[in-house]
């Protein structure tokens, strides 16, 4: 036990020492190997013609203390990537290191610092109370539960579960169950936490609360978090950096700001029943048209028209006899970035590939 136990204790304590400096410190300043280092990871499922490459030569490094989003449609390989990192799926090629420990070789050592909330899993015992779950899973992850009782109280406080601490999980609402699941994952003091679709199935309000709490936990506890989601809002709200996956490959890997900045183009979307091939062609003569949607009711055209060009556009529309029923500026979001890079929407399942 000595090896993993040392590893389990070293982590949180190290973090405490750096707490004072946190805030000014950028993730890259932290010493030691990165929290997660994936190199050339490949995983195929099935054989012959039916084989599906779920993860295709993916390499990725996650620095300590950062919050990274894995964005992609169902079947893009997010879950497989996470399961490979946890060692519950064995890759065909490539390696995964967690805080420098190879997941395949020194699995036990690696496990002390990592935990995960997997999609669709309950992750905890519904017949035990909230606190019993935290204590049980802390022990399972190699930490004496009495020694982290204060941390558990704090976690429960943070997640608004303090007055439900002695309630069996089965009696809680869905949103609360999800939070207990998260708390049980954090209970053992794992420094690297994978959250697979953490807001899936939650109502708008619960999802919003969970997002806010995730962000806060990441900052306050100095956790390294990898969040997978097909939900842009979650990724935008929680992550510093986004890795976009499509068909098992990384199609983009950058900070949220950089990705959004690249998509920034001061566009306006005009909706009008008068938009047809002829009027659109007229607009195209003097403006760059980004997108035309003839199926929309009324049809819309998205035009690059930043600054004063907007006045020119409205003049041109009036001249063409187009009565505008709606006009709005287009805010670039991750969904568009994703669409641009892959040609598919992140919440659409990619063809044939289930994982």
């Amino acid at each position, binding site marked *: 036990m000595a090896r993993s136990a040392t590893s389990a204790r070293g982590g949180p304590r190290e973090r405490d020492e750096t707490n004072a400096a946190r805030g000014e410190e950028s993730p890259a300043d932290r010493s030691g190997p990165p929290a997660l280092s994936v190199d050339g990871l490949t995983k195929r499922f099935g054989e012959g013609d039916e084989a599906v490459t779920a993860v295709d030569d993916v390499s990725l490094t996650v620095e300590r203390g950062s919050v990274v989003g894995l964005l992609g449609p169902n079947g893009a390989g997010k879950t497989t990537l996470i399961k490979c990192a946890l060692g519950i799926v064995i890759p065909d090629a490539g390696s995964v290191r967690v805080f420098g420990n190879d997941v395949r070789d020194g699995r036990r050592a690696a496990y002390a610092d990592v935990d995960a909330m997997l999609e669709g899993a309950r992750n905890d015992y519904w*017949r035990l109370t909230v606190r019993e779950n935290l204590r049980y899973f802390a022990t399972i992850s190699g930490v004496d539960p009495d020694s982290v009782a204060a941390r558990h109280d704090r976690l429960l406080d943070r997640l608004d579960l303090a007055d439900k601490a002695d309630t069996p999980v089965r009696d809680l609402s869905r949103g609360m169950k999800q939070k207990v699941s998260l708390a049980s994952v954090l209970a053992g003091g794992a420094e690297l936490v994978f959250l697979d679709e953490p807001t899936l199935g939650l109502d708008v309000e619960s999802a919003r609360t969970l997002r806010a709490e995730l962000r806060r936990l990441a900052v306050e506890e100095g956790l390294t978090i990898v969040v997978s989601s097909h939900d842009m809002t979650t990724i935008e709200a929680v992550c510093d950096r986004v890795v976009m996956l499509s068909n098992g490959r990384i199609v983009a890997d950058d900070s949220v700001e950089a990705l959004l900045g690249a998509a920034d183009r001061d566009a306006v979307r005009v909706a009008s029943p008068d938009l047809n091939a002829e009027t659109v062609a007229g607009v195209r003569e003097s403006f760059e048209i980004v997108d035309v949607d003839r199926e929309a009711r009324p049809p819309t055209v998205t035009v690059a028209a930043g600054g004063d060009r907007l006045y020119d556009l409205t003049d041109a529309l009036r001249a063409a006899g187009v009565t505008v029923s709606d006009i709005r500026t287009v805010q670039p979001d991750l969904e568009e970035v994703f669409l641009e890079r892959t040609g598919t929407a992140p919440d659409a399942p990619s063809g044939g590939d289930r994982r």
Partner: protein
Amino acid sequence: MSADTTPPEEPAAEGTGDAARAGDDPRPASYYHLARAVLYREYLIFVRYPANAIGGIVVSLFFFAALFLGGQLLAGQALTDSIEGIVVGYFLWTLSVGAYSSVSNDIGSEVQWGTLERHITTPFGFAPVALLKGVAKVVRTFITSAVILAAMLVITGTRLSLAPVTVVVVAGLSIVSVLGLGFAAGGVTVLYKRIGNWLNLLQFGFVALISAPVFDLPWTRVLPLAHGSAMLQRAMVDGVRLWEFPLVDLALLVVVAVGYLFGGYLVFQFATARARRLGVLGDY
């Protein structure tokens, strides 16, 4: 960006986090902590949901009563002569079924709940966790089967030798082999979820093992339960004490128990390793 985002630059909520963190000194958990956690969980579920245990006891007793009263009608005196053997056999059967189904069903449920992989990805490794869970199941099964045994003795008016050490050791070692079968079945369930239910039928096969003709066919002693069952009959019916058994018998009892437990665990290991390659572990 949505409004609920807290910018990373913002200081931790008014410093409360840092104050509380002072009382936070994670110490490594030892095997003692692990044992306490696993056993305590079993205990909590046992006392919090007594209906499951009571239900099991009632069903077992109902079957026994049907067997006994029906048998009396059909066989009359012949049955009454062998009633002690039947009580002991039935006692061992309830123990076996309890140990087997609790382990295999437990693994099945944990797969469904997504808690199994958390036990596999523990720094302790799965083996000690599984072993402790097995111990917890055996203890629990002994408690319920003791109640059934007491009720059977009352119903039939039989007297048996109930030397606690002898009975617990012999019966305990006998069902350790079944525990191994439970792990194997659980492993198969991880791989092929639908087969799991069929494997429950195996528990009726235990009847054959318990009544295996170990005197006529000595090789059957290496099957699970068979040898232990014969020893338990001698202990409870003839009053043979643990230390009065030949050393060879005791050694065989231990070898069979450890052998099947180890074999079952290997099957489980193999099955989960395969599940990891196939990517079916943690599929809900």
